[in-house]
C-alpha cells in the first residue's frame, strides 16, 4: 500500500481546470499499466477506447481517486486525488461496468438513497430526490422491488440513477453498455448524451462516441491518439487491424 500524502485542507475546487493528469503512471506489482500521461480534460464529453488490458479501466479509476497513481498527480478541478479522495469522489460519480457490483441495497429506492445518506442529506429531501430520479429513469414503479429481480438494462439504469441522484459535477462511466442489448445500450447512450455534467466514458462501443468532443485511444498504457471522434476511431481501427 502506497503511503498517502498528509491531507491538507481542501482548496476551493475550480471547475474550469477540469481533470489534469500530470506525469501520471501506474504500476500493479511488476506490471506497468499506465505511463507518461500528461493530459488536461476539460471537454464536455470525452471517450476513451482501447483493447482489453490496455489500461482503460485503471485510467477511469484514476479520475475519481478510486486508484491513486503510483507516480505523478491527478487533479480534479484543482483537487489532488491522492490527498482529497473524498472530496474528489463527491465531485466525480462513477458508474461501473457490472451494475450488480454497484447496487448495494436490497431494494431499488433504498439503493438510490444510499449515496445521499452518505452525504448526510436529511430523510425528507432524500425521499424527494430519490423519487424524482426514479421517475426520470422510468424506475418509479419498481421503487420497492428487490434490485436482483430487475432486468440487466434496468439494473444499469438503477446504477446510473444511484450516481446521478448525488448530483456530481462530473461522471465517469466504465463500459456502461458492454453487458446490455442494443435497445438498452441505446437508452444508456441517449441518457449519456442528455447529461448536463461533464462525462468521461470508457467503452468498446464505438457508436456511443458519436457527438463526443474528444476521444482518447489508449494502448499499452499510453495515449496513442487524442482527437475528434472520427479521426480517433479511424486511428483505433487501424491500430487493431495490425494485430
Amino acid at each position, binding site marked *: 500500500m502506497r503511503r498517502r500524502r498528509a491531507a491538507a485542507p481542501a482548496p476551493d475546487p475550480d471547475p474550469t481546470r477540469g481533470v489534469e493528469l500530470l506525469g501520471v503512471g501506474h504500476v500493479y506489482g511488476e506490471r506497468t499499466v499506465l505511463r507518461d500521461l500528461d493530459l488536461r480534460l476539460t471537454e464536455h464529453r470525452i471517450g476513451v477506447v482501447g483493447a482489453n488490458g490496455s489500461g482503460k479501466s485503471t485510467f477511469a479509476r484514476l479520475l475519481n481517486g478510486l486508484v491513486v497513481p503510483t507516480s505523478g498527480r491527478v487533479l480534479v478541478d484543482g483537487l489532488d486525488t491522492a490527498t482529497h479522495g473524498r472530496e474528489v469522489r463527491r465531485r466525480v460519480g462513477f458508474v461501473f461496468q457490472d451494475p450488480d457490483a454497484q447496487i*448495494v441495497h*436490497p431494494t431499488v429506492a433504498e439503493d438510490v438513497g444510499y449515496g445521499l445518506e452518505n452525504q448526510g442529506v436529511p430523510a425528507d429531501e432524500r425521499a424527494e430526490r430519490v423519487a424524482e430520479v426514479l421517475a426520470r429513469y422510468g424506475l418509479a414503479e419498481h421503487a420497492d422491488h428487490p434490485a436482483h429481480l430487475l432486468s440487466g438494462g434496468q439494473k444499469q439504469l438503477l446504477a446510473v440513477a444511484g450516481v446521478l441522484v448525488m448530483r456530481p459535477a462530473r461522471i465517469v462511466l466504465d463500459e456502461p453498455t458492454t453487458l446490455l442489448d442494443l435497445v438498452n445500450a441505446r437508452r444508456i447512450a441517449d441518457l449519456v448524451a442528455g447529461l448536463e455534467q461533464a462525462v468521461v466514458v470508457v467503452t468498446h462501443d464505438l457508436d456511443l462516441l458519436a457527438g463526443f468532443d474528444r476521444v482518447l485511444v489508449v494502448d499499452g498504457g499510453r495515449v496513442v491518439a487524442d482527437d475528434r471522434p472520427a479521426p480517433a476511431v479511424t486511428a483505433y481501427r487501424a491500430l487493431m487491424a495490425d494485430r
Partner: protein
Amino acid sequence: MTLALHVPGASPVHRAPAGAKLLVLVALGVLLFAVPTWPVAAGALAGVLLVGLWAARLPVRVLARQARAVAVWVVALFVVHALVTDVLTGLATALRLLALVLAAAVVTATTRVTALVAVVERLCAPLRLVGVRPARIGLAVALALRFIPLVAERADRIREAQAARGARVRGPRALVRLVVPLLVSVLQLAHTVGEALDARGADTA
C-alpha cells in the same frame, strides 16, 4: 433462489414500527417456548396467519413458500415426537416451529430493510463506547441481504457452466467443485463492491 423480502404495501402491519414488530416476534418466541402446549401453538399459528393474510394482505404464496422450506422439519419433528412422547406433544412442537417461521416471514415481508437496519443500528448504539460504529453494522446487514440472492445466482451460473461441459451437478463432489470458483467469483465481486462503496461516498476509511 428467492428470499421472502419486502412485499410492498400500506397496511397497518406495514406501517407499524420495525422495532415493535421485532419485539412482538421475540415475545411470541418466548411465549411459545414458555407454554409448550398445542392450543397455544395452534392459537399462535392462527394469529400469525390472520395478521399476515388478513391484516397485512400478504399473498398466500409468500407464506406458503416459507412453510414449504421448513415442511420437512415440521413433519420430522412431529413424527419423532409422536413416536418418542405422544401425538399432542408432536403437534405442539410442529405447530410452534411453523408459527415462528411464518411470524418471521410476516415481519420481513412487511418491513423495509432500511427500517430493520435502523433498528439494528439503534440496538448496536451502546457499542459506540467500545469504538464500534453502528452504521457499519447496519451497512453489513443490508449488504448481506442484498448479496444473498446475487451469490446464489452466481452459484447457479457456475453450476450451469460445469453442467454444460459435462460435469455432474449433484452430490458432495459437485459441491466441492462449486465452492472454489464461487469463492473466487465472490472475492472479485467483493473487491468491486468495495470500490463502489468508496465511489458512492461510504465512510470506509
